[in-house]
């Protein structure tokens, strides 16, 4: 019994690392640009397909394609900020919500047309490897994904704390007007925020590929998780999103273990609804906006 719980916790924690990459992106964009990116999951999907094609066409290891995915998605993020999101800033809720929502629908359905709904998988040398500790086992591919996810989160943390640009981003997220008065160029900051957030989503795509199939709707799973994590971890709070993602990975995994294979999402959604009922400002406290 203890072993089953421990195994479920390990599985959940490892996938929670991936959720963290997605939710940190969502919360970063929300904190800095004040937009909820409904399309964040679709950039994970794009990352997965890039990794898939690099692996099947050029034989690149998914971990190597990380270095392709992240810059490519950073560039896409900057372009999306410049050509789409910039045009709805300062407008009311409707365009701000439905612009990225439309983008999400568009990317999913173009992928459906071009790539078909088929599942694509990449098999690497370490896809089936696992480390054993007593009765517990830790799949290597997931462990690597978790490690890299935590490393990237740490790098982002350091970036936001120590660099001028990172500080400018935090300033812009705390008070846009004052930040602007202090000489911070909001557009540049927003573009970088979008770029970083999408690069993280792309990284999640690469890291997932050795053990998770790619298909056009795959992003939906991750974006729903991310939304819950972001509410749970207090909107706009990077550390909160990270911790909440790990907790949700564990909650989902326990739900699958003890309620049934298709019940992971129920647990997560109930967690969201319970949070709304009991602590609408999120676990870290603070304002709901």
């Amino acid at each position, binding site marked *: 019994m203890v072993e089953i719980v421990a195994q479920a916790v390990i599985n959940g924690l490892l996938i929670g690392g991936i959720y963290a990459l997605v939710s940190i992106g969502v919360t970063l964009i929300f904190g800095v640009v004040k*937009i*909820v990116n*409904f399309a964040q999951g679709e950039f994970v999907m794009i990352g997965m397909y890039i990794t898939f094609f690099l692996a099947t066409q050029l034989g690149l290891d998914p971990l190597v394609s990380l270095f392709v995915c992240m810059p490519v998605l950073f560039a896409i993020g900057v372009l999306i900020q410049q050509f*789409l999101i910039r*045009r*709805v800033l300062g*407008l*009311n*809720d*409707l*365009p*701000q*919500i*439905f*612009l990225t*929502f*439309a*983008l999400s*629908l*568009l990317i*999913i*359905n*173009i*992928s*459906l*047309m071009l790539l*078909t*709904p088929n599942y694509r998988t990449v098999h690497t040398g370490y896809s089936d490897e696992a480390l054993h500790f007593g009765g517990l086992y830790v799949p290597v591919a997931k462990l690597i994904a978790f490690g890299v996810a935590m490393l990237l989160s740490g790098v982002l943390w350091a970036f936001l704390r120590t660099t001028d640009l990172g500080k400018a981003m935090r300033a812009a997220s705390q008070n846009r007007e004052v930040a602007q008065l202090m000489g911070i160029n909001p557009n540049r900051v927003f573009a970088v925020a979008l770029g970083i957030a999408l690069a993280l989503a792309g990284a999640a795509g690469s890291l997932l590929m050795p053990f998770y199939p790619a298909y*056009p709707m795959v992003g939906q799973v991750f974006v*729903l998780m991310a*939304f*819950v994590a972001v*509410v749970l971890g207090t*909107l706009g709070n990077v550390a909160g999103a990270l911790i909440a993602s790990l907790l949700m990975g564990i909650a989902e995994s326990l739900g699958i273990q003890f309620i*049934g294979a*298709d*019940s992971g*999402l*129920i647990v997560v*959604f*109930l967690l*969201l*609804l319970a949070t*709304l*009922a009991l602590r*609408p400002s999120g676990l870290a406290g603070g304002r*709901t*906006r």
Partner: protein
Amino acid sequence: MKIAPRAIVAGAVVALLVALPLVVKSSFALDILIRILLFAFIGTAWNLLGGYAKQFSLGHAAFFGLGAYTSTLMQIDLGISPWIGMLAGGVAGMLASLPIGWLCFRLRGPYFTIATIATAQVLMLVFLKLRDFAWGAEGTTIPNLGNAPLMMQFDGKAPYYYVVLLLLLLALAITAWLERSRIGYYLVALGEDQDAAEAVGIDVPRVKRDIFMISAFLTAMAGTFYVQYIYFIDPNTAFNFSISIEAALVSIVGGVGTLLGPLIGTVLLETTSALLQSWLGNLAGVQVTVYSVILMAVILWRPTGIMGFLAELNARRRAKRVSS
């Protein structure tokens, strides 16, 4: 003076809609017309909450599904006519909107939207699990009784057309009445600025709750109609996310917070989709790709939708007439 010509136009349009099945006999064309009226109906129901109060729900499938399941369960388990089931379903949807609203209205803006998505998803997952009570994932077919108007089953498609036309007219009448009533002004005020509305003494939570109940009631009725029309129900049909999406989409494209916006938006989107389908066949993804491009174009260039565009043209013409 101003009301008379408007009433004549409205009467003429309704007469045209009533006469349409007398001319259009092809069941393919009638099917498209029924889809248009159905989504115009759902869109009009969504528009009450999303358009006037600016609470952008993407979870209206919750009520659609509850309406569909309520009437189907009553029909199959108890033999009660779906006509009564439709009202019972409306009440079920309305009651469900209370806890859902209680939870979701705690959040504003995009996070309200996300919370509504979650509630609809939870309901779908719950119905997938309810194997003994509601057939689980397999769903069930609705027994075909032939031509049984009392059980909302008809031979041809024309009667279905009239049923959904009546539903749409009902929703439009409610909207038109609300537009002129006190609650209509409250809605517009809170849609503009919730805090300001509260400051001038509007009971914002109550107004939101009331309009959500009406919107949910109507959406649930659409659910009953739909499963009676296709003779089949399963959680994936009844709670499909695409219902929530299309409800919002037709309203935004047509023009949120306008009486006829959802209808006009549906006509545009559904005709486009029908044309695409006859041109390209049933290629996966094409329809929604086009929908999302239209949605994006509307958001970037005309956030007030087609109705806003028409109003602008009208104002420009009037200004020209005054100056000349």
